[in-house]
């Protein structure tokens, strides 16, 4: 395959699909260890493929803007009746998120090596299909196709939570959490479908052409009122998934009941699809309405940061703690997107990647603590520093990353967001900046409760094994690299983010 063969985009989606199916079909004959290796091999190969695409491709083009240009593009007709085609496109933004997806996919497979003991084949089928669906969402350039994968990836996630999740004793069941997650995202998805249909019908009414294609719909002429309405439809659908206040309530429930791989997947990747949707579709389709709406969206982002931080502080369950901190961090992403300066937008991209890695790692650590202590309640932990030699420092590292310690990826992202948002909206930036302090408070409070003090748990539990240390070290290295030398990421996202800024400027009165 040469780098310019667009069929490679299809491979990115098809390989995990096939791998997942393979895991399930041959589990009975080849035993339960086999699916794990197949899944690992599948994810490593797509990771290699996506890294190779990064190394060899030219990402100075932008898929956003008046006339999108794609590094790689693949299109075949699908449902000509409505002008729907199987249209995939890759630019710097999608590439970064696909690499992130595949990195975390490898980690998700690795971290469930021991945790998942039942129905291993079917587990990996769901995990891999979910990852494939996410990759397809990052590539889809036809709104029907985008919606198709947007909804499709939820089903495997539901299975992951409902079958392999945890029931909190005396609390909510995993079915409750899984179904709540599914209904929230599906209902908002229908809203997205309606907005898409509205856009398509307006375009059809104007031109007489049925199309769901990204390039064509960018040129749709909308009256300001309709533009605002449709923009709200897209925004609400994405804000449920992101999640933004007041639609975030599914997230803590889903996280606390999900298996580790499910949490990694949810926090690390699924939440990013919403931010991606805003950048790729929400803003370019409706630049004027988005510019009008920006102060409200930024306000919601700031509110999310502060609210998320306060809620984080009040949690006893480690996984709910990390979940609420995600709400807080995604607030930065929302502010970055709607601030609309290249700096802030690039900050949002870096935050997405850094949060994906750090939250993913924290969830992996939560899972590893749970495997050893059989509790996620911080009141029953404490004194881990004395019990384990390796786990506590690693945990400390990722907590420090999450609170935005300079030198690690999260700091770069949040700093860029604040810097870029300052000239646009000072009050929001001030409130958002306070989130950094609040993050330090809850993060250090968590460290104190979990790691320090007298040991409450039974002693003599095994420390991290080599597989676990290797996965976490990889993530540490990535986060450190992103913090110290973020330039490759910034380069890849520069062109699309700059195009977004131009859209905002064009729309600004």
């Amino acid at each position: 395959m040469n780098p310019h063969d667009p069929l490679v985009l299809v491979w990115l989606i098809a390989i995990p699909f096939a791998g997942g199916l393979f895991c399930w079909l041959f589990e009975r004959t080849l035993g339960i260890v086999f699916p794990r290796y197949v899944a690992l091999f599948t994810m490593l190969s797509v990771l290699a493929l996506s890294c190779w695409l990064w190394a060899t491709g030219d990402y100075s083009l932008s898929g956003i803007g008046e006339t999108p240009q794609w590094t790689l593009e693949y299109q075949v007709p699908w449902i000509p009746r409505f002008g729907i085609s199987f249209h995939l496109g890759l630019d710097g933004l999608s590439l970064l998120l696909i690499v992130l997806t595949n990195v975390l996919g490898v980690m998700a497979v690795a971290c469930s090596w021991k945790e998942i003991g039942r129905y291993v084949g079917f587990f990996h089928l769901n995990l891999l299909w979910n990852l494939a669906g996410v990759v397809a969402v990052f590539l889809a350039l036809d709104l029907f196709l985008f919606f198709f994968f947007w909804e499709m990836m939820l089903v495997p996630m539901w299975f992951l939570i409902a079958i392999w999740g945890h029931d909190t004793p005396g609390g909510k069941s995993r079915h409750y959490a899984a179904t709540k997650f599914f209904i929230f995202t599906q209902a908002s998805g229908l809203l997205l479908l309606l907005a898409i249909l509205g856009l398509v019908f307006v375009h059809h009414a104007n031109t007489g052409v049925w199309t769901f294609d990204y390039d064509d719909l960018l040129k749709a002429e909308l009256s300001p009122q309709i533009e605002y309405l449709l923009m709200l439809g897209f925004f609400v659908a994405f804000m449920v998934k992101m999640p933004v206040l007041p639609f975030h309530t599914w997230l803590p429930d889903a996280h606390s009941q999900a298996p580790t791989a499910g949490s990694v997947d949810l926090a690390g990747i699924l939440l990013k699809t919403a931010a991606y949707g805003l950048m790729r579709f929400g803003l370019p389709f409706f630049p004027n309405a988005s510019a009008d709406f920006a102060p409200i969206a930024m306000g919601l982002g700031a509110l999310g940061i502060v609210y998320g931080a306060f809620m984080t502080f009040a949690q006893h369950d480690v996984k709910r703690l990390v979940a609420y901190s995600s709400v807080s961090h995604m607030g930065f992403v929302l502010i970055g997107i709607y601030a609309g300066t290249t700096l802030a937008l690039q900050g949002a991209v870096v935050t997405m990647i850094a949060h994906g890695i750090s939250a993913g790692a924290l969830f992996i650590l939560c899972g590893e603590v749970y495997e050893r202590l059989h509790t996620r309640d911080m009141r029953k932990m404490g004194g881990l520093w004395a019990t384990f030699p390796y786990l506590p420092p690693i945990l400390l590292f990722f907590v420090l990353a999450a609170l935005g310690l300079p030198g690690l990826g999260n700091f770069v992202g949040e700093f860029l967001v604040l810097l870029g948002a300052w000239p646009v909206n000072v009050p929001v930036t001030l409130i958002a900046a306070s989130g950094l302090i609040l993050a330090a408070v809850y993060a250090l409070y968590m460290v104190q409760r979990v790691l320090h003090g007298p040991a409450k748990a039974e002693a003599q539990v095994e420390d991290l094994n080599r597989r676990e240390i290797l996965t976490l070290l990889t993530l540490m290295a990535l986060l450190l690299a992103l913090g110290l030398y973020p330039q490759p990421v910034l380069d890849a996202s520069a062109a699309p983010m700059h195009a977004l800024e131009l859209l905002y400027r064009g729309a600004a009165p």
Partner: protein
Amino acid sequence: MIFTLEQWIALSPILITGASSVVVMIGIAALRQHQLNATLSVMGLNSALLACALLLFGPQLFPELMTTVLPAEVTPLLHIDNYSIFYMGLILSATLATSTLAHPYFDEFKGKPEEFYLLLSLSALGGLVLACSNHLASLFIGVELLSVPLLAMIAYPLHDKHALEAAVKYLILSAAASAFLLLGMALIYADSGTLSFPGLAQHLSAGDASGPYIVIGSVLLLVAVGFKLSLVPFHLWTPDVYEGAPAPVTAFLSTASKTAIFAVLLRFFTEGGGYATGVLIDLLSGLAALSIVVGNLLALRQDNLKRLLAYSSIAHFGYALVALIAAGALAVEAVNVYLLTYVVTNLGAFGIITLVSSPLKERDADHIEDYRGLFWRRPFLTAILTAMLLSLAGIPVTAGFIGKFYILAAAVDARQWLLIGAVVFGSAVGLFYYLRVISIMFMGEMKHIGFDVTLGWEARAGGLVTLLLMLLMLLIGILPDPFLHLISFAGLSAG
């Protein structure tokens, strides 16, 4: 009246189905053997289906042998066009699937299973008449021919109290509906002096469409149709009948019979001038919204899979009505697509229930606890049921999504925001109970195995049909284009 050759040819699916029921009757009289009679009836249905296919595609495939006979007017009662052929094909396919599923089911039946196929063919014949009905008289004949054999089919296991109860319920409400239908027809005739759809359309567009007789008459007509389609508030019989009837009969009732009624309703609206009476549309909107909301909400608390699917079918016909009400350029196409996806999906779901059930047991395998942990013992069988339930919920990759997409597209086109709200609400609620069933199938191990499918189910006819339905369902969901192409032939021209 003398029929021309073209008219005979156009009428062939109906004639073949009618003849095949006679053949089955003679067959039963000559030799009472299950396999033989089932085969006879399936052969008849298959040739009728083949006739449909030839009528639709013959002129294109063999231009030197066949000429187009469609659309054909056979007496003022029947109008056979592509639309009728599409629905005849759908009804015949559903009937075929039903009889294939019924064969293994009734193989274990203690009584005499042969007459079932006779009743099934007769009922299908009623459906075929409805699909080409162009006249209120043929509408009535079709409805009766469809329902009366169905009654006997519901009560087929005569020793079973539930089945008898269901049949009596269906009988009484069905009779009431027929009375409404006749009275409505009489009132319409009193005002317009015609019973044919084109005549009515002319009358309604020329004169005033709000005369008291015509309005009351069409409302009564709608009430009767509402009973048959089990729209809220005429749905009370549905869950009991679905639960009491043998599983293959329920499959037929919820797919072929409802589809046939809906087909004639849509034709009445587009070609019979139904859209001209604004009251009807308002009333229909109310029925649609109520069916969606009430059907979905009542499904939430069901522990019985057949009852759950009964309530879900109430809601699904609410969705289909939304497209009918939308009335735009997309309406007929949307209804056709939706009913196609609905029939395939529902047949698949009931197919699995039939495979797992057996008439030797006191009841069918209709309690959701019967399915607990089934996935871990019968992964492929359960995967099919799961996919069918997801399709009913309208999740992408399944046929149900394409159907729902069409409904929403038609509604957005017509700016029916209130009904769209109902559809969105209904879909969100619907997820809850479909997921509940799915989660039971994937959870834990069953304490005692009450029901199980026979080994090698996938190699037997009933199993093959469900596998085929599954493939078809996924094909519609993933590559809908050939199906949409087929349906684009089956349009209706507004009269």
